[in-house]
């Protein structure tokens, strides 16, 4: 059974249609990559799946783990196992990473009918996950993304994903802003999460990330539609030829 099945998905922002009929099916255990020029609608797709206000679905359906994803509130989607690593992670002053993630994890656990983790249990968990990502104790105590460099923010997204253990992780340009060492660390973190029950949708503009997170399937998104689908060699082809054959999209 597919983990997520997107059928003929149309979505608009401010009355302007951005997604013009997306069809995409991902099975558990698979890693899919979406590549495409700037402004082609990659982030829009991730926001629509996560349920962001202002992104209006005008047609189509999305089934996630057997339920109608589009009928759920954003937090219900999170509890159902959908995670979005943001292209631009958001700062929350005064709220420590630890507090934020503990509240989030316990909210999700509550929705699932699981008992809350107490402070000690949670601290043990987050410390272990942070260590895997070479993040210091100091970083997990700092306010969420406040004063973080671009690379640290992306690593923080990977930490949240590792703690929340989603069924489907959507990574929106997680490679942007990362130097090669940080890229390797984050990719390792992501790869460690690969499992037969879990799927990933890796959004990227560049092929580079896919050297580290090797996808099973690669899609090209342009003009609001999937234009081509292939294996990992498609990424290399795009790297060589660029997106010229798909025509230029408006700049994002």
């Amino acid at each position: 059974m597919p983990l997520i099945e997107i059928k003929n998905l149309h979505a608009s922002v401010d009355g302007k249609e951005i997604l013009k009929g997306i069809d995409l099916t991902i099975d558990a255990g698979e890693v899919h990559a979406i590549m495409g020029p700037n402004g082609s609608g990659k982030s829009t797709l991730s926001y629509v799946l996560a349920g962001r206000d202002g992104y209006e679905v005008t047609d189509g359906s999305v089934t996630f783990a057997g339920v109608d994803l589009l009928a759920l509130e954003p937090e219900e989607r999170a509890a159902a196992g959908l995670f979005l690593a943001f292209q631009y992670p958001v700062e929350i002053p005064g709220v420590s990473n630890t507090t934020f993630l503990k509240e989030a994890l316990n909210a999700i656990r509550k929705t699932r009918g699981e008992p809350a983790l107490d402070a000690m249990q949670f601290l043990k968990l987050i410390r272990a996950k942070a260590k895997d990502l070479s993040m210091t104790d100091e970083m997990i105590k700092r306010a969420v993304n406040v004063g973080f460099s671009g690379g640290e923010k992306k690593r923080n997204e990977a930490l949240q994903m590792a703690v929340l253990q989603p069924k489907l992780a959507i990574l929106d340009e997680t490679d942007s802003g990362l130097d090669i060492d940080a890229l390797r660390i984050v990719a390792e973190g992501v790869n460690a999460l690969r499992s037969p029950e879990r799927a990933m949708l890796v959004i990227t503009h560049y092929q580079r990330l896919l050297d580290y997170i090797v996808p099973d399937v690669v899609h090209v998104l342009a003009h609001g539609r999937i234009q081509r689908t292939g294996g990992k060699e498609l990424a290399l082809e795009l790297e060589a030829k660029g997106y010229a054959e798909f025509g230029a999209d408006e700049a994002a």
Partner: protein
Amino acid sequence: MAATEQTIDQVRELTEGKYKYGFFTDIESEMAPKGLSEDIVRFISAKKGEPDWLLDWRLRAYRHWLTMAEPDWGKLHYPPIDYQDAYYYAAPKVKEKPKSLDEVDPELLKTYEKLGIPLKEQAILAGVEGAGDMPAVAVDAVFDSVSVATTFKKKLEEKGIIFCSISEAIQTHPELVRQYLGTVVPYSDNYFATLNSAVFTDGSFVYIPKGVRCPMELSTYFRINAKNTGQFERTLIIADEGSYVSYLEGCTAPQRDENQLHAAVVELVALNDATIKYSTVQNWYPGDENGKGGIYNFVTKRAACRGKNSKVSWTQVETGSAITWKYPSCILQGDNSVGEFYSVAITNNMQQADTGTKMIHIGKNTRSTIVSKGISAGKAQNTYRGLVRILPKAEGARNYTQCDSLLIGDKCGAHTVPYIESKNRSARIEHEATTAKISEDQLFYCRQRGLAEEDAVSLIVNGFCKEVLKELPMEFAVEAQKLVAISLEGSVG
């Protein structure tokens, strides 16, 4: 934490009982007739068996009040208050304790539950018979104008600390009261303080002797109860040389329809090397979402840092009341004295708050810090009003002020009115102000991680207030965080 509420709620059911037994018409109620006159002032003073000097002081205040006009400079709108349409004296009656939680007001229990207070503790708080032992915090409850309970007195007495109702102090330590009462807030100070001076019925009195560090947090839980009874609390705290005290004041109030006037006065005196930490969580009934009902809270709080190296720190979390008019201030008289003001003011629905502080630098090298966090939601208006005044002799004085406003929705308002007057060139004054909205980005980010919208708002707001909340004593901080969430309920979505 909430053990501080014990006495109030013991007393709360006393007043609940009053309604049941038709207390208002009962002569035993010891309620003075409605309205304000010299006779009422004399009645209050006589009821309390006060010495002549105090009656004279009250009468001077009353006569002065007649010549004054209600201030209108606050950014506050409310219908005129009819001072003749209120009671100025009511004493509570003792009633049996409830036998179990079933007998306690369910509204009260609902609030306890939201505050996350465990059942056993709820029973203690509600004063259920045999439910608990002594609270871990010393409590002096001011309730319906008369202090009805004072605990932990013995332990404090061993250290020579006086902690009692001000009426009691007037009887037992008249010389101390006479020496300090009205020396920080004179009877002629302002309209509401003057009114208070004429008709104050009770409040707390604290004296910490030389060199004594008070071994526990001292706490008063105020609660307004009798219908139409204005509350005129008067609190006086004196920290003698080299002493330390942390004092907690907390308020909750049951819902009611009539606006209730509250005009308290708090005077703090810190002598050489003494420190007073005064923390408030104010959660009086704010009125309904249309602004009906709610408490009018006109408070004068002022500290005199009289001695060298003395320090006073005000921390307040203001979430309640329909109208808040309140400027806890410090007069930094002693050289090297320090004044601090940490404030969170949350206004939701139709609430209005005009609050801030005054830091008056008189002595050399005096320092003050002001951190104000104003949060507005609904159609509320939230104003920070602050004065930093550096007098000519305040060589080397320093002030740092930070005023941050957070808006939730687009129908509310935040205003910052800082006044700065410096008469000494060596003074350094820094002022920072920001206004922000909870962004859609932040909300979506939190919700994507699994938090419901209201929990996300509460988390973001608590983060915004963190610098202030961390100044609260532990037992208050946890409660305050939950209060932040409760007071913003219904502000989004």
